C-alpha cells in the first residue's frame, strides 16, 4: 500500500505584506519620516560640525540660520545637533523599553495562562495593582524612588508597560491552550515548558507585535516626559524632554529653543504610531480601525 504525496508547488508572487503596506499611505508617511530621522541620527557626526555638549557661550541664543539650522541654546550649543543625538537616545530607549516589556510580559502571561489556577490568580492580581495606577504617575513614582537617572527611567517605563503584555499573552494563551494541537502535544507527554515555548508563544505573538509597534511612540513620549520633569536623563545629556524642560522658559524670547525638540518628539512618536497602525491592519485584518 502506498499513498500519493500531493505536495503544493512552491509559489513566488509579490509579497502580500509589502503590497498591503504600500496600499496604506499614512503608514508609508510614518515609515518615511522615521527612516529620515533614523538616518540623520546615525550620520549626525558626518552632517554636523558641532558637538552635542560643547559649550560656546559667544553664540548663545543664535536664531536659526544656515550656520545653526535650528539655532543655539543658552550656552551656545547647536540645537539641530543636539536633537539628532537626542534621537539616538529617544528612539533607542523607546524600542529597548517596549521590547523588554514585551518579552518579559509575554513570558509571564503565557506561564500564567497555561498553568491557570493559583499561579494565574496571583500574577494577574499583581498586574491589576500595577494597572490600577495612572501609568505616568506610577512611572514618576518609581523613577523618583529609584533615583533620577536614565536607566531608572527606563526601568520605570518598562514596569508600567509589562501588565499590558501579560494580559495580551495570557488571553491568547487561554485560547491556544484549548486548541487540539496543544492538547495533542500534552497527550504525547511533551513537558509544559516546551509546550509554552514551542506551541503557545510562537502562535501568541501576533497581538504582542502589534502592541509593541503601537507602544514605542508612547514610550518615547514617556521617556521625554520623565526627562522634562527631571526624573530621566540629566543635563547636559541631549535628551528631548530635558531640552524642552530647560527651553520652555525661553519660549517667548527665543522660540526655536523648545520648539524644535518638541517638533522632533512629535514627529518620532507620530511616525511610530502610524507604522503601528499599519502593522496592525496587516497582521490583524479583522480589527476595526
Amino acid at each position, binding site marked *: 500500500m502506498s499513498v500519493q*504525496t*500531493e505536495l503544493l508547488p512552491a509559489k513566488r508572487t509579490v509579497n502580500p505584506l509589502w503590497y498591503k503596506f504600500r496600499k496604506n499611505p499614512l503608514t508609508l508617511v510614518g515609515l518615511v519620516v522615521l527612516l529620515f530621522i533614523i538616518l540623520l541620527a546615525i550620520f549626525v557626526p558626518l552632517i554636523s560640525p558641532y558637538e552635542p555638549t560643547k559649550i560656546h557661550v559667544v553664540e548663545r541664543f543664535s536664531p536659526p540660520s544656515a550656520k545653526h539650522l535650528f539655532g543655539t541654546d543658552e550656552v551656545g550649543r547647536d540645537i539641530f545637533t543636539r536633537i539628532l543625538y537626542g534621537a539616538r537616545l529617544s528612539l533607542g530607549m523607546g524600542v529597548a523599553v517596549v521590547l523588554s516589556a514585551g518579552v518579559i510580559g509575554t513570558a509571564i502571561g503565557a506561564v500564567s495562562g497555561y498553568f491557570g489556577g493559583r499561579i494565574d490568580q496571583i500574577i494577574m492580581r499583581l498586574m491589576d495593582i500595577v494597572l490600577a495606577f495612572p501609568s505616568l504617575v506610577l512611572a514618576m513614582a518609581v523613577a523618583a524612588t529609584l533615583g533620577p537617572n536614565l536607566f531608572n527611567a527606563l526601568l520605570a517605563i518598562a514596569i508600567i508597560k509589562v501588565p499590558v503584555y501579560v494580559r495580551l499573552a495570557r488571553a491568547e494563551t487561554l485560547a491556544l491552550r484549548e486548541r487540539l494541537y496543544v492538547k495533542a502535544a500534552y*497527550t504525547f*507527554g511533551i513537558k509544559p515548558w516546551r509546550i509554552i515555548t514551542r506551541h503557545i508563544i510562537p502562535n501568541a505573538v501576533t497581538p504582542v507585535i502589534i502592541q509593541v509597534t503601537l507602544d514605542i511612540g508612547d514610550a518615547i513620549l514617556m521617556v521625554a516626559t520623565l526627562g522634562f520633569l527631571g526624573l530621566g536623563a540629566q543635563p547636559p545629556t541631549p535628551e528631548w524632554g530635558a531640552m524642552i524642560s530647560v527651553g520652555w522658559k525661553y519660549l517667548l524670547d527665543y522660540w526655536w529653543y523648545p520648539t524644535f525638540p518638541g517638533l522632533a518628539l512629535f514627529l518620532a512618536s507620530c511616525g511610530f504610531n502610524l507604522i503601528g497602525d499599519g502593522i496592525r491592519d496587516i497582521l490583524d485584518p479583522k480589527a476595526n480601525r
Partner: protein
Amino acid sequence: MLLEIKELSVEFQSIQGKLQALKNVSFSMDEGEIIGVVGESGSGKSVTALSILGLLEKNAKITQGSVFYKGKDVLRLGRKEQQQLRGKEIGMVFQEPMTALHPTMRIGDQLAGVIKRHRQVSSKEAAQLAIRSLAEVHIDHPELVAGKYPFELSGGMRQRVVIALAMSAPPTLLIADEPTTALDVTIQDEILKLMKELSVKRGTAIMFITHDLGVVARLCNRVIVMYAGEVMETGITSDVLHRPAHPYTRALIGALPDWADPNEPLSAIPGETPNLFNRPAGCVFADRCPQALPLCREDRPALEAYQDNQEHRVACWVR
C-alpha cells in the same frame, strides 16, 4: 491484563447542576487487543478515553472508580508519573487531523520533538527516526514530507502523521477517538488498515472509539456498546453484531442503512437520549426500548453474562 476500568463514574459541574456523564463504567483490555467502543454522541465514549489520560476539563470530576493500567491506578498517580504515562505508554489519536498538528512547525520537527522526549537520542538521530516513522505509516518521500508544514498536506496524510506521532514512543496502548470520522471513505479504509497493521506489528493495543459499526466489524476483536454513559453490552465482535442481546444494540444495527435497497426509508431509534442531569431510576434505555417491561423503569439491570457466555455480557432485564 493491560487496562482495567472499574466502576468509573464522572460528573460534570454546570450552571444547570450536575450532569452524570459516566456511571459505573467497567471493562478491561488485554495487551495487543483492538477493542471498539461504540455509541451515539453523548454516550460517554470520549469521556471514558479522556479520563484515562487525565485530560478531563476542570469542571469534570471523577466521583468513583479506578483505572488500572498495568496494575497501577492511573487516577491516583503523581503528576510526574502521569506525564511519563502519556505518550510513552498511552498514545492518543484525535478526531480532526486538521487541527491536531502544530500549524507553524515542520512535520519532521514535531516528530523529532516527541521522539526526543521519550528516547535517549541526539537531535540528529531523532530527525532520522522521524523520517523512518513517517515511512512506517506509509508516507511516500518521507524525507520530503518531514520538511513540510501541516497546511501543505492532505487530510489523510495529516492523520498518518498524527498516528506516527502517537506511535513514536511506541506506546503499549493507543486510544483513537474517531480517527477516521473526518476523512472520506477511501482514506478511512487506508487508515484502518494502517492501524491494524501497526497493532499487529508492534503488539499495540488499540481502544477504538467510533459510532461506526462497520469499522468495529472490520477492526475490533471485542466491542463495548455504550449508551448515556453506561455500558449496555460487551463481547466478542462477532457475537455482539450477529447475536445482539441488548435492544439498544439491535436498534443500532437496525439503523444501519441497507445499501441493497435504496427505497427503504432510513430507520432511526425513536425518542431521545435521557436527561443526564436527572437519570431515570431504572434502565437508561427504557424510554426508547420497544420491549420495555414495568420492571425496566424501576430497577437498573446489572451487566451479566448472556446465555451463559461469560465473554458476552449485557445489562438488560429482557434476556
